[in-house]
């Protein structure tokens, strides 16, 4: 079977992790039982529960509740759909070197379908998906990665001969819950950015009527995605969402307020050039176009690569990858403000503003000169009644 995708990078279909932790034979067992079977120690499991409690911004005593829930609950079935994507969110999930997040999440869930990592291929794989939809209707979780093209009948991304739009409508439509991970699945991301030749849209737009939890970011943070699933397992409902259907625990604060360089910002200490003294001293990257002040995410606290670092800590400004349509709205990434439409990239809005002031000042000077040359209008008060309107110079001054 040939998969035709417009924008995806290479896929490695058949060698895998999942084959070992085979989802099928574990289904029905409790989470903890499966974890133990796969060599996750009690200690690692406790660590994981602690991490989830912290990520969800819950008070510490909830850790016990989370543990309890994970011990009791049956493994939920999960399918992971990939459409117009770079598999970056999958990579983010798999590349955690620290075992807690990736291993535990992979074991907490019963992964029935994931194009990149599943063992099955071709008709077998599609049959697995069809089985889930048929037998587990309304009981499985669906994670979507990548945008969904709508132009020309959706031909720009087809899997097994079916369009992404068709698959998403069917799979998300009969899922218990749908989670969009990454910028592309959220609002189209890079694929939808100008000029959007494939008519790509996010999951929410492609599958109207389905309540989607969005986890934007480029890529998403696996701890956040795990936390949403853990929240669902523990409390039986999705976490509180903002107006973009993003979980508040991860997207409720602006990056600027959580940034370790914030003190430099408040003090007025700024990097003015890459590699200058301020940059070497770790000063604020505001003048280098950092979008931290307008971006919502918990990137500074959860951090990437096993909580090692995040862009601003590494010395690069934030590009607001979890903000709406960030490729279009947040670029240029190294400038404070966007380019002005119709003025090219070299004319910042400030220059246009100065030109406006200059034009008004020049016009004023010209007018003043003209008025001076023309002279002040002196009236003979006796003429007053003949004029159209009453002039005010009706007083004879002493001089």
């Amino acid at each position, binding site marked *: 079977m040939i998969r035709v995708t417009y924008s995806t990078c290479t896929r490695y279909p058949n060698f895998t992790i999942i084959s070992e932790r085979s989802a099928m034979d574990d289904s029905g067992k409790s989470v903890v039982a499966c974890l133990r079977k796969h060599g996750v120690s009690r200690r690692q499991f406790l660590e994981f529960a602690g991490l989830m409690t912290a990520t969800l911004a819950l008070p510490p005593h909830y850790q016990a509740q989370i543990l309890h829930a994970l011990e009791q609950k049956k493994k939920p079935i999960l399918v992971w759909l990939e459409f117009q994507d770079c598999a970056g969110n999958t990579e983010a999930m798999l590349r955690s070197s620290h075992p807690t997040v990736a291993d535990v999440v992979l074991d907490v869930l019963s992964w029935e379908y994931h194009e990149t990592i599943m063992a099955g291929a071709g008709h077998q794989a599609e049959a697995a998906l069809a089985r889930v939809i048929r037998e587990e209707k309304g009981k499985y979780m669906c994670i979507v990665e990548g945008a969904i093209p709508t132009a020309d009948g959706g031909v720009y991304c087809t899997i097994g001969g079916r369009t992404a739009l068709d698959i998403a409508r069917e799979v998300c439509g009969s899922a218990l819950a749908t989670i969009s991970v990454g910028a592309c699945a959220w609002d189209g991301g890079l694929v939808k950015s100008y000029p959007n030749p494939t008519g790509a849209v996010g999951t929410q737009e492609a599958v109207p009527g389905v309540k989607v939890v969005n986890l934007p970011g480029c890529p998403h943070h696996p701890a956040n995605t795990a936390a949403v699933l853990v929240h669902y397992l523990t409390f039986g409902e999705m976490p509180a969402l903002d107006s973009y259907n993003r979980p508040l625990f991860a997207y409720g604060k602006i990056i600027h307020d959580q940034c370790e360089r914030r003190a430099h910002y408040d003090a*007025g200490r700024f990097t003015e050039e890459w590699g200058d003294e301020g940059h070497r001293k770790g000063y604020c990257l505001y003048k280098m176009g950092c979008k931290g002040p307008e971006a919502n995410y918990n990137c500074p606290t959860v951090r990437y690569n096993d909580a090692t670092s995040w862009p601003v800590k590494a010395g690069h400004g934030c590009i607001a990858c979890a903000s709406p349509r960030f490729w279009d709205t947040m670029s240029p990434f190294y400038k404070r403000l966007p380019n002005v439409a119709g003025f090219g990239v070299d004319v910042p809005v400030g220059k246009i*503003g100065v030109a406006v002031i200059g034009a008004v000042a020049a016009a004023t000077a010209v007018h003043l000169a003209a008025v001076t040359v023309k002279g002040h209008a002196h009236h003979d008060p006796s003429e007053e009644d003949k004029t159209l309107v*009453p002039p005010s110079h009706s007083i*004879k001054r002493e001089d």
Partner: protein
Amino acid sequence: MSTASLPPLEPQTTATEPGAPLVELYVWELPIRLAHWGIVFSIVVLSVTGYYMHAPFLISHARTDYRMGTMRFVHLLAAWIFLGSLLLRLYWFFMGNRFAHLRAFLPHTHRQKESLTGMATYYALFRPEPYHQAGHNTLAAVAYLLMYMLMGIECLTGFALYSEVLGNRALSFFVGWLPRLVDVQHLRMGHYFLMYVFLAFLIHHVYSALLVAYEERNGLMESIFSGYKFVTPKLAREEAIEGEEQRFGKKEKPRP
């Protein structure tokens, strides 16, 4: 236009007597003057601090500085003064005297249209003197109405940006819809660009006020401090007639 039924003017004069004393006319009420100076003060403060927030031109190296923090604090403080002044002005569009009332800003009467073309031809140097009106001339009034709208947009964009940072529900209730409509970066750009528009307007505003004050010699510049203008009895009479008409309707329809 009959003036027979009008109450006598104080002081009682015939209109066009040369050398007649000027009549003191209360034009700008206290709320108008307060709003005006509140707007002037806050725009100056907001421009300086806002420009610093856009492009911090003073780089600190001291450990104890709190420069950006102070700039932002002052900017927000001035923003509330700006908003308060604008709201006061908005209120006075409906509660104020006829010079400040919204009616004076929407050209609909014959006199206003005459004033509009009169002032336009005056500025184009085709007419030797300004069109005389005790309040705003209509061209100015239309320009001010436009500026008030831009100030409203400035306030709206500013508080929308603030609400993004603050995360306050009450504030988001009023302005939270805006970042959904226009992305934050373009809001910020518009907010920044309007500063230049206001500064350009400031140049024009002061120049035209000085020019007309020089032509009319009616205490125009002083009136924004004191509230009073000094007009000819004829103009005062005209203004009084217009005021009467606005209050009781046109004279053609006899009152019961």
